[in-house]
């Protein structure tokens, strides 16, 4: 009985850590798309860049704090680079460029030596792990760290979005020509928005790498980007609290269809179960789109008012 309880507690820690990491990841996407209107279908690339940068630097002896900061910075720099097409391209083409970038990056990571190729990297140092705590205590401590950093990123982006700076980002989303006609030089804002969102994703990537304890290219497939989009749309685009709610619901559903939870249903093979998960999430999305198309925390007006 106590074994079952311990298992549940451990499971809860892992559930919350995963969900919180996705909240952080989505906060970055929300700044880019929800606030500024830049369609980024390659968000997972920034997660990967943050993860690989932090881990590789850590492996080469850079202290974890600096390695993590570098993961954020390098992601942000790639955000700047990818923002340049964003200055010229229409939404649909930007979507193609970003998704292409993420796939190219993953293929490169899969095929070069220094990233460990398809085997990836494992056995690297992880924050708070050398305190002599057991794995479970570490899990909770690490969760606290993830929650704290996510709360910080959340609060900072909220501050920016509600400031005059955020007003410019929103105006770019609504009608960038008019924003220019009213005297704003929007170039820097678009680049900064993309870079900040990428940096936040980079932080999520570094933390994800520490949490997994091993990374490989499979962790960074396109589906991760779309999970982030699902969470964002579920919660309500442009609302950061929506990301929290969306992540909890998404992972709640994911867990509810997990092997342990479904064991009572009968002998379902693992691969079928995986397929069933996707079905369940699809059904959830369809239901949501019917009854609450603006997302759970979205404002109804948001929909009718898109140009």
């Amino acid at each position, binding site marked *: 009985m106590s074994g079952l309880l311990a298992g549940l507690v451990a499971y809860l820690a892992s559930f919350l850590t995963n969900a919180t990491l996705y909240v952080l990841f989505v906060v970055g996407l929300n700044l880019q798309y929800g606030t500024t209107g830049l369609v980024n279908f390659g968000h997972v690339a920034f997660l990967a860049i943050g993860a690989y940068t932090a881990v590789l630097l850590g492996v080469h002896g850079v202290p974890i704090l600096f390695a993590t900061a570098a993961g954020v910075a390098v992601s942000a720099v790639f955000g700047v680079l990818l923002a340049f097409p964003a200055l010229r391209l229409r939404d649909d083409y930007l979507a193609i460029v970003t998704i292409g970038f993420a796939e190219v990056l993953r293929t490169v990571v899969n095929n070069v030596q220094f990233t460990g190729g398809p085997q990836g990297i494992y056995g690297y140092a992880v924050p708070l792990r050398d305190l002599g705590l057991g794995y479970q205590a570490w899990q909770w401590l690490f969760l606290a760290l993830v929650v704290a950093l996510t709360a910080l990123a959340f609060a900072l982006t909220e501050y920016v979005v509600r400031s005059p*700076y955020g007003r410019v980002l929103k105006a770019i989303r609504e009608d960038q*020509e*008019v924003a220019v006609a009213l005297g704003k030089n929007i170039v820097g804002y678009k680049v900064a928005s993309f870079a900040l969102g990428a940096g936040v994703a980079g932080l999520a990537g570094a933390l994800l790498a520490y949490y997994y304890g091993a990374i490989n290219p499979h962790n960074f497939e396109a589906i991760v980007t779309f999970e982030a989009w699902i969470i964002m749309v579920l919660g309500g685009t442009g609302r950061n609290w929506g990301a929290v709610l969306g992540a909890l619901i998404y992972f709640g559903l994911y867990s509810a269809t997990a092997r342990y939870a479904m064991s009572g249903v009968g002998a379902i093979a693992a691969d079928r179960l995986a397929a069933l998960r996707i079905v369940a999430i699809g059904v959830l999305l369809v239901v949501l789109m019917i009854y609450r198309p603006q997302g759970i925390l979205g404002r109804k007006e948001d929909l009718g008012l898109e140009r």
Partner: protein
Amino acid sequence: MSAEGKESSEAEERALLRVREARKLFGGFAAVDGVSLDVREGEIVGLIGPNGAGKTTLFSLITLFLPLTSGAVYFRGQRIDGRPPYLPARLGLVRTFQITRVFARMTVLENLMFAAPGQPGESLAELALAPRRVRAHERRVRERADELLRYFNLERVRDQYAGTLSGGQRKLLEMARALMTEPKLMLLDEPMAGVNPTLKEELLGYVLDLRRQGMTFLVIEHDLDMIMRISDRVVAMAEGRVISEGPPEAVRQDPAVVDAYLGPGGQARAAPVDPGPPAGRALREEGRAHG
């Protein structure tokens, strides 16, 4: 540019806006074909002409939305063509659009506050290092926005999304938003298009009142009666060129203008006695087709 300065007469010096031989080619087609015009401080200048005359293109050239093929644009004595498109508004030259373009998913108040110039809170460094200065400035911007909301009777919709406003309210919001930039010259692109008679009078009242306060206007308008009532001077365009310029009545009766609207045959039919009304009717019909 210095040579140009020497040549310019005193009248030109007083001109707020000077356009010289502006030309815009789209492929081989000259949408604007050598247009020169001046707008002096405190004036209301009407810009008329049939569809396709190049009026809106000229607006886009003046506001640097489109690059000139050749020619020059001076605003307050400074040559601005070739400069970035956000510059005109910062110098005091702002435009509104033929079809209103409000920021739909921002509140009416946000629409206005956005347009205020020189906001420290638009810089991340200031946000991080001088939050008190940002807040103080934000308060002043909000006060100014509230003032304009009162002036334009939009207080009731202050916190609504701009996308929920009626067509008339959008026109007012767009004008208020343009005023937030603290302009010297406003370019209004068909402010009366698709507007009911009551609101037309209201808009007219605002334009005249703002002029009394020192504002200068260049107005594209299809409603000829309206343009005759508000303009000090009218410039008529057709096929990318200025075909007539002067006091409203003179321009209205200029055979070249009547020709442009009705075709050469139209003049024979309508002209000798009173070319005004038929032209006016043609304009109104066109305006509807446009809207």
